[in-house]
């Protein structure tokens, strides 16, 4: 097999047994890899209704046919599991050396079942699979643990590691790779923690067989040329994702004071593109990437001067900056570093703390309810204290570790209206009231509120599509979803597609170069549709339906007070209209359940991997 290795390494952590599961070409052609293959595998391998933090859950790491090759953006892996944060399908992406190393070791992915007897590190070197004791690093922060893992052997190893948050089963716990790369969303870190796995290290010494390796090299120069001519590509390379803040703040969609407004006055000057650029000390690329959009930042001034992190990315600037009313970039750098070290998702943490701050300022929570902390907006020091409390489930942190939906449920007093989540996954840093399509994108995202499945502001704010209407948004969201599903199944980063740009047609060529598969752009979109319905089936089996594709009251019923969206209201009826349209385009019924003719159309069968 070319491009793929054709094998899934399945490890039963309870019995320490492992086996290689053959991934038939037929299945790979239907689901490609990454997100798509994960949808198929998780559906078949997981029993319905299992507790995500029990040993019955399955934790899968997958690559795709383009991973590890020269194909632009082929540096990614995806974690597929049942999310402890949402109870739904979780696909959480990261890059890191481990992605290509899994393939060099001879596998397309790794699936973990059961639970290790004691805290362990899973070590995979080609065909050698070993559980080694993690007693020396259990309890250590993720950076210290990863350093110890990297020091164990005198070679480059791919790593995944959790911090104290994952060990403590915090539902917003992330997984680190190469220190600063996170599969952060949805609590994958807690699933590893529940399996007693502190870290995974992989090294392989084999080749990835490519159908036409010379052609792969020949594709490189035209891509460089395209990038050179791409204005947005150049901007992305220079500033990284912080440039987005300048756009969202002027569009009135930058979450500020827990989404009470979408404008943080003057934020461009202290959290925006130039402000961050001023502190960059190095650019860092993912494996094989010509963009190098990740920035290493050292705070030049501010209360926490000298703090260093790879980041902060836009989402972190929004949710740990403006959303908390924090203007000091150095505070965001430190918050970012704390989350990375402790193994927490910066997006979810920013939502939880922002929510607490709003409750505190509205008198719904008193100082004594929050372990004696004054939590007014802008209080950096106490935000940092809360981050640590969440990771260690200490005091109020034990509740916050459950995510914002659980916190609102406990506090009551109508606070659920401004607990910013969908399917219990906290909001990314774009207020949907400034681009109505985003409300639908968040609501129908299988893993909960997510900006990486479809991002309508790309045309609602930056293009010619009117932002303050729901008309036509269902179709836009569906198309965007499918485009990203193709990237996430191949599996490549979605940035080269958007910023170089490498088109889907280009990627179909890369797929052919790698695997020999002949798929047109249209074929790939059809496969993406199949994958979305396959994932939907998983969530339906877990009890999800239309009622869960929801938005907080604040989003559907309250207008933003300033900026371009001032006074505009989505309205519950309009929102429901988008949902109905979306389901109809997908071939799902009014409740969001895939129709039997839809399953037939996409040839979705269940059970191929039931015995694995």
């Amino acid at each position, binding site marked *: 097999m070319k491009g793929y290795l054709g094998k899934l390494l399945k490890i039963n952590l309870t019995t320490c047994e492992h086996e290689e599961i053959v991934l038939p070409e037929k299945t790979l052609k239907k689901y490609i890899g990454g997100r798509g293959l994960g949808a198929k595998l998780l559906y078949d391998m997981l029993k319905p209704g299992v507790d995500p933090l029990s040993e019955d859950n399955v934790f899968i790491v997958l690559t795709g046919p383009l991973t590890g090759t020269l194909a632009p953006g082929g540096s990614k892996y995806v974690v597929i599991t049942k999310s402890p944060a949402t109870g739904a399908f979780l696909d959480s992406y990261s890059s890191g*050396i481990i992605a290509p190393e899994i393939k060099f070791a001879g596998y397309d992915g790794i699936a973990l079942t059961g639970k290790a007897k004691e805290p362990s590190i899973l070590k995979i070197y080609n065909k050698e699979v070993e559980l080694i004791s993690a007693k020396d690093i259990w309890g250590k922060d993720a950076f210290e643990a990863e350093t110890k893992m990297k020091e164990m052997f005198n070679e480059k190893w791919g790593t995944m590691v959790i911090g104290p948050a994952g060990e403590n089963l915090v539902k917003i716990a992330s997984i680190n790779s190469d220190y600063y790369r996170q599969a952060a969303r949805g609590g994958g870190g807690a699933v590893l923690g529940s399996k007693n796995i502190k870290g995974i290290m992989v090294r392989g*010494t084999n080749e990835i067989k490519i159908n036409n*390796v010379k052609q792969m090299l020949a594709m490189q120069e035209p891509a*460089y040329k395209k990038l050179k001519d791409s204005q947005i590509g150049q901007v992305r390379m220079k500033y990284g994702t912080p440039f987005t803040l300048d756009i969202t703040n002027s569009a009135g969609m930058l979450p500020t004071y827990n989404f009470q407004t979408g404008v943080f006055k003057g934020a461009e000057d202290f959290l925006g593109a130039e402000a961050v650029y001023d502190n960059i000390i*190095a*650019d860092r*690329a993912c494996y*094989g990437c010509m963009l*190098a959009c990740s920035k290493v930042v050292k705070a030049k001034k501010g209360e926490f001067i000298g703090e260093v992190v790879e980041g902060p990315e836009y989402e972190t600037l929004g949710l740990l900056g403006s959303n908390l009313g924090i203007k000091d970039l150095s505070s965001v750098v430190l918050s970012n570093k704390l989350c990375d070290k402790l193994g927490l998702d910066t997006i979810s943490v920013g939502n939880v703390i922002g929510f607490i701050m709003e409750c505190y300022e509205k008198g719904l929570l008193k100082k004594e309810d929050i372990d004696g902390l004054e939590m007014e907006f802008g209080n950096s020091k106490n935000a940092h204290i809360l981050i640590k409390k969440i990771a260690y489930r200490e005091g109020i942190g034990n509740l916050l570790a459950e995510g914002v939906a659980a916190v609102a449920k406990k506090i009551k007093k109508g606070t659920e209206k401004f607990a910013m989540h969908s399917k219990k996954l906290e909001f990314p840093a774009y207020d949907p009231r400034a681009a109505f399509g985003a409300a639908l994108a968040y609501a129908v995202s299988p893993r909960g509120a997510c900006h990486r499945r479809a991002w309508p502001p790309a045309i609602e704010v930056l293009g010619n599509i009117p932002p303050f209407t729901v008309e036509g948004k269902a179709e836009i969201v569906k198309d965007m979803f499918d485009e990203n599903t193709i990237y996430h199944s191949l599996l490549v980063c979605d940035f080269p597609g958007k910023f170089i740009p490498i088109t889907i047609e280009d990627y179909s060529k890369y797929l052919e170069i790698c695997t020999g598969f002949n798929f047109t752009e249209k074929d790939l979109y059809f496969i993406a549709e199949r994958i979305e319905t396959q994932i939907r089936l998983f969530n339906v089996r877990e009890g999800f339906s239309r009622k869960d594709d929801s938005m907080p009251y604040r989003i559907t019923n309250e207008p933003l007070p300033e900026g371009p969206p001032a006074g505009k209201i989505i309205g519950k009826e309009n929102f429901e209209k988008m949902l109905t349209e979306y389901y109809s385009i997908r071939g799902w019924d009014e409740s969001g359940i895939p129709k039997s003719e839809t399953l037939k159309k996409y040839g979705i069968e269940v059970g191929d991997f039931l015995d694995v």
Partner: protein
Amino acid sequence: MSKIKVNSNKCTGCMICELVCSIAKNEEVNPKRARIRVKEAFPIPGSPVVCSQCKKPLCREGCPVNAIEINDVSITINYDKCTKCMKCVKACPFNAVFIDVKDGKPIICDLCNGDPQCVKYCPKGALTYK
């Protein structure tokens, strides 16, 4: 003699040089066969290590069977003579003699006959050949 120079300030640690080397020299995707290797470092990325084409190569001095030769372009290894004793690997003060993971042979950058592919494909201009 010309050689590859690394500007570590421009390097982003993308490892395209390793990938391209592996493809150019072996027609396969396997960076562990590359003759240029990026050092791992955090948070500032490490940069590549590659043969500096020393005028008095210690690898050659360390080789007990005179397998290391210098041609018009570069240092090369004569594999008819090489016994894989790895003394050259140990002798290089820059750690720029690598081991080919597939056949266990020592490997040194041969500058691709004067057209080093890693230099050609480095997206950031961190590698120059002069």
